[in-house]
């Protein structure tokens, strides 16, 4: 083996240190997830300490009506919130990019408020308004709350993917005979589709995992999954919850891999 110069040796140690460091950081980020998955196999009523291995919880979780009920509730809200946020967000991103109008600056700044300001402040603000208007809290209020922070994320995500070329493409489409609506669906929307998909994914995960907004704006009857888990913290979390969240993670990761795989496949196909 050739002798490395001092500088090269330094570079190598630096590189190795870098890899080790990165692994440590990833470890810190993933340990809680691994622990959470492991404890889904815990043979104990409540997850206080490890008491042996069992897979029973994966079956039992489907009998936990409160758990499944809140899962449905969360999913329904997440789907609705995603649809609303993506539609409003897509139109908004396009409109804000193209047009000038009075108050545009205000709207642009307002969009960053839900992203930057702590969620508790947003939640409290909405709560006060709802209560003062006499609106009862429930799915509607939670939905509004979720959309209020999902829409800005959607707009920002999509805006970042709108290329400067968009205008010329729309002109080309109209030049070839398509009116504005046809142009929107045939040209504009497909060209920003990756951004729209990202925004949809982001909105969905933000909504499903949301605690603060869902807690403050919850009605008396149903609660979303995270809120349920939060309340279980006092009494103790049962391992079937771990099982459920483990399944959720695996589904999401699988979905990601699948979509990436599909994208790569499509690219290879069209290069024929």
């Amino acid at each position, binding site marked *: 083996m050739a002798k490395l110069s001092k500088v090269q040796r330094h570079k190598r140690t630096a590189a190795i240190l870098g890899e080790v460091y990165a692994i440590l950081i990833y470890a810190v980020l993933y340990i809680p997830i691994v622990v*959470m998955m492991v404890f889904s196999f815990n043979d104990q009523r409540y997850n*206080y300490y490890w008491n042996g291995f069992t897979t029973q919880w994966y079956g039992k979780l489907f009998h936990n009506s409160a758990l499944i009920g809140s899962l449905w509730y969360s999913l329904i809200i997440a789907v609705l919130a995603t649809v609303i946020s993506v539609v409003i967000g897509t139109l908004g991103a396009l409109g804000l990019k193209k*047009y000038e109008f009075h108050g545009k600056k205000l709207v642009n700044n307002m969009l960053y408020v839900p992203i930057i300001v702590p969620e*508790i*402040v947003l939640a409290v603000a909405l709560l006060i308004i709802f209560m003062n208007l006499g609106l009862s809290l429930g799915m509607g209020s939670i939905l509004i709350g979720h959309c209020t922070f999902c829409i800005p994320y959607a707009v920002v995500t999509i805006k970042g993917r709108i290329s400067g070329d968009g205008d010329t493409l729309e002109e080309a489409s109209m030049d070839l005979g398509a009116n504005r609506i046809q142009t929107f669906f045939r040209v504009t929307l497909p060209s920003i589709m990756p951004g729209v998909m990202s925004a949809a994914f982001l909105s969905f995960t933000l909504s499903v995992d949301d605690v603060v907004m869902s807690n403050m704006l919850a009605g008396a009857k149903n609660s979303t999954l995270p809120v349920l888990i939060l309340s279980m913290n006092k009494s103790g*979390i049962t391992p079937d919850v771990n099982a459920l969240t483990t399944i959720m993670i695996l589904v999401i990761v699988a979905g990601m891999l699948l979509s990436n795989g599909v994208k790569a496949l499509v690219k290879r196909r069209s290069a024929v």
Partner: protein
Amino acid sequence: MSKQPSGTSDLQAIRRKRDMRRKTIPALAQAGPVSIWMILFVTLPMLFIIYISFMSRGVFGDVVYQFSLESYQTLLDATYFKVILKSLKAALLTTVLCLGLGYPFAYYIARKPPEVASRLIMLIMIPFWTNSLMRLNSWLLLFQTSGPVNNFLQWTGLVDRPITFIYTDGLVVLGLITNMLPFAVLPLYSSIEKLQKSLLEASADLGATPSQTFFKVTLPLTFPGIFSAIILVFIPSLGIYTVSDILGGGKVLYIGNIIKNQFGSIRNWPLGAALSVLLLVITGLLIFIYTRFAKIEDMEVV
């Protein structure tokens, strides 16, 4: 001024009307919904909160619409003031640590080829998509008095008796860091990645050592990313209450917890509003400083 042939004046009127139809309707349809939503559900509620913070609290916990500064005076009260200070300290500590841990990490990722880098970034985001409450719960399990960490420490002989980790400020900060780290890494990565290699080469060419290049070129040029990271970590850390709730078990109280309580059991809306306004003011201050230094580009969270 040229004389216009007759008939063009009504033509111009038609043109103006059609221009309005052509341009205003699509503009309204696209930018309208988002604007209305933002004004209805963000601007107005925010204004209302500021308004409420200046109201007083009735005997039964209702809001009495009389101007009063009592909520703000309560903030200066010793107990509340201490909590605010504690929250600021914790948020600051979290931010500094996230920056310190996150910067080298972002740098490491940025040196990798793009496809590898994007996969690495996705790896960081996966925890973000999982339920934060369950993750916090895991930390609790790990650091329990009879939990794995304590067992390990006793086994190696580093300590004689179990250390109480849970329900301490320290554990809360740990929880904050693990929650916030992705928010620090992403803007840092984005700004480091934009750094042109040719600048670093030029610096070396002109005689600077690697550490000189870092402090004179890399660091200043990545400052926008650093500032984004600060904003994305510091402010949420101030307002979060789930971390302190779960990892602090009700013993560790931060601003977020107190605000929540004002709208729950304690029922002091004006006070809760005042605290929220305080958070808004701090947020606004930071943003103001930020806009002085850099344009707010799209804060790519994904």
